[in-house]
């Protein structure tokens, strides 16, 4: 079904993991321009392409599931838009699908609640995976220092962690994301590590999906 507003699901691979969100928006806009996609523009002195992105992906992460709403000057078939954009997107960025949207539609932030990550940890000794898993299950609270606009605060993030499972040096974490705030997997991991008195950190973080 052709539509003039579509929700794009795209992935960001290794080569662009250090590109900041603001720079990434430009990469996206330029790919649209190269593909001659007829994107709608805002009015005013500095017309901008009508693109709405989900929460910024932190620098250093890769992801198989990012979202962007795009408004077009004319209706596009999802396949047409996806293939046009994929022909010009650089560096292992690609659009997986496009879903037509009809007004009123829920914003990206209100349509997702959880993000699933697969991470790799550094410095985990043998058997520590079992210890970490048990620590998480048995803990009543996981306190971490969370930075916000009003400064640093010691917060219990346990309610924000839906899943935590370590196997070898692979860490599977599911945390909340969206309107109600979100939790970075490295914070969850470091909170649980300090409960278990283990020194380790995540060296790669990959988002597999959001739902």
């Amino acid at each position, binding site marked *: 079904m052709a539509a003039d507003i579509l929700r794009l699901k795209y992935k960001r691979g290794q080569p662009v993991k250090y590109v900041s969100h603001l*720079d990434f928006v430009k990469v996206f806009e330029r790919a649209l321009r190269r593909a001659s996609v007829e994107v709608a523009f805002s009015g005013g002195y500095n017309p901008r392409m009508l693109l709405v992105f989900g929460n910024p992906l932190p620098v250093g992460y890769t992801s198989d599931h990012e979202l962007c709403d795009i408004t077009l000057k004319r209706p596009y078939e999802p396949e047409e838009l996806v293939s046009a954009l994929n022909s010009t997107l650089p560096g292992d960025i690609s659009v997986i699908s496009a879903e037509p949207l009809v007004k009123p539609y829920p914003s990206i932030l209100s349509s997702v609640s959880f993000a699933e990550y697969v991470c790799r940890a550094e410095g985990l000794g043998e058997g520590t995976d079992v210890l970490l898993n048990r620590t998480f299950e048995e803990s009543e609270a996981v306190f971490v220092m969370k930075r916000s606009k009003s400064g640093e605060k010691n917060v219990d993030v346990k309610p924000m962690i839906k899943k935590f499972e370590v196997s070898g040096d692979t860490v599977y974490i599911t945390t909340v994301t969206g309107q109600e705030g979100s939790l970075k997997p490295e914070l969850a991991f470091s909170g649980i590590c300090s409960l278990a008195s283990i020194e380790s950190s995540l060296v790669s973080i990959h988002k597999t999906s959001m739902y």
Partner: protein
Amino acid sequence: MSYIPDRILMKVEKPSRYTGGELNQIIKDKSKVDVRFAFCFADSYEIGMSHLGMKLLYGLLNERDYIWCERVFAPWPDLEKIMREEGLKLFAHESQEEIRNFDFIGFTLQYELSYTNVINMIDLAGLPVYAKDRTEGMPFVIGGGPACVNPEPIADFFDLFNVGDGEEMLPEIMDCYRQWKKEKLPRIEFLKRAARIPGVYVPAFYEAEYDNEGRFKSLTVKPEFNGIANVKIQRRVVPDFENTYLMKSQVVPYLEAIHDRIMLEIFRGCIRGCRFCQAGYIYRPARERSPEKLVDAAVALSECTGYEELSLLSLATDDYSRLEELTDALINYTEKRGMNIALPSLRIDSFTLDLMEKISKVRKSGLTFAAEAGTQRLRDVINKGITEEDLLRAARLAFSNGYTGVKLYFMLGLPTETDEDLLGIPALARKVRDVYYECHEGEKVRPPQITVSVSTFVPKSHTPFQWFPQIPFDEIRRRQFLIRDALGPKYGFSWHDPELSVVENYLARGDRRAAKLIYNVWKQSGGFDSWSEFFDYELWKSEKEKLGNVGFEGSDVPDPEAPLPWSVIDIGVTDAFMKRELERALLCVTTPDCRTKCSGCGVARYKGGVCVGC
């Protein structure tokens, strides 16, 4: 795979500066090329990626199958520190490989304060910084770009320089190198062969002499290189600019560069001849490209980059003879694509309503008017052919078209400058402010934002002002305060740090002895002297004091017969013309632009310019 491991990249600022992989970068099979060229820009990635010359020569060199040219930038100090701790070496962006095994390490030399970064990069590559210490099997370090018109301060660090336009010369050097490499000859043989290519300067073939008082006396070919090295190096010029290589692709950085846009070089050289301006002499003659070629290039570049902005590049946009035709054709294309056009470097005297409308069509950015000096007398001395009326007319046009502010740009410390000239600056600013209120008579308007920006004059080689001194540090300060106090609180005021200008002066007219100064400072500072957070004036000053004379300093009563350290470079403008311009400056006589009348500067012999009668 990036050369710098992830664990380090995660710790440094803006890691995407180092990982390469940008759109339109050129990757080749290294086993199939004969020459690997590391094209270095001695500053951060964001600055280097804004530079047109690098993009242009990158494209041009890579057109040849046997060359793989890659980009190299100075790592920011946070990364450099870790690299040095861990023994990592300077690497190229495309291959992510160390450059110490390349055939050439090339630097485009843009500003004097980057010299410490140049040697820092050679050192970080793992190579000796002095050319004399580099041995068989090591890369050749080659320099190009505008600062090469006085290569002496950095002569000891370079194996060779290519002076002037690189489009023809650089490939000739590469061909010569490829042949030399095939023949497996000693290092010195390549330099001897390269020295025969017009425009190539091999500094090791020359030696300098100084008189008893430590003043520069001469630079001559060493006896053993007689007949091999040219007595004077003739700057190279591409005469057929219209058909010279024009980029059809450019690398698009992931990280926003300072000037992140399509750049179209509409013409090279300048017809004006402002006497303080080195660029006005060293790129002569002015040569234009046709709108047809430029529009083709603009479309090609836009399609392969997707950029949102296109900028016309030259020394004075409105001196381009077919500007209207060009901008109309470009706007026709860019409007459809939602792109902007930037027209930098506009002159006050030709600022028209039509141009005004064109820039307003795209974006209301700030307007800068370069008046350069506060009085007509001084503007005549420097040959800035504009009048107060030109300035006020341009201001009127801007204010009645919705602009609520302008930036007025001046220089301080110009030859023959008096307090009256300096006080002319605030007086002009006040007149511009009055014009604003005249334009809005009877309306209730907010006060205009008028900013006066004053930089310090640095006498440059190959200009008629090369024989003048720079005014002393304390005097620079006094003159800055004089303007500031006379200006009052209704105007914005910005100035250049005099410390930077003083050091720039040491280097701009330095001779070979300045290399020691650059080396000594670098040893202690580590580079990045063009960034005020890393620049250490006291260090430069004390090292300079220790060394004494390191170059030509000029005098209040200029002696045009004094030998100049850079006279080994013949930029094509004759000595006689420079002396004539010096005399005319002292008599406050202006010289017409090259389209109005040929003043016989000497570059007509290159042909291909827009100069009258050529």
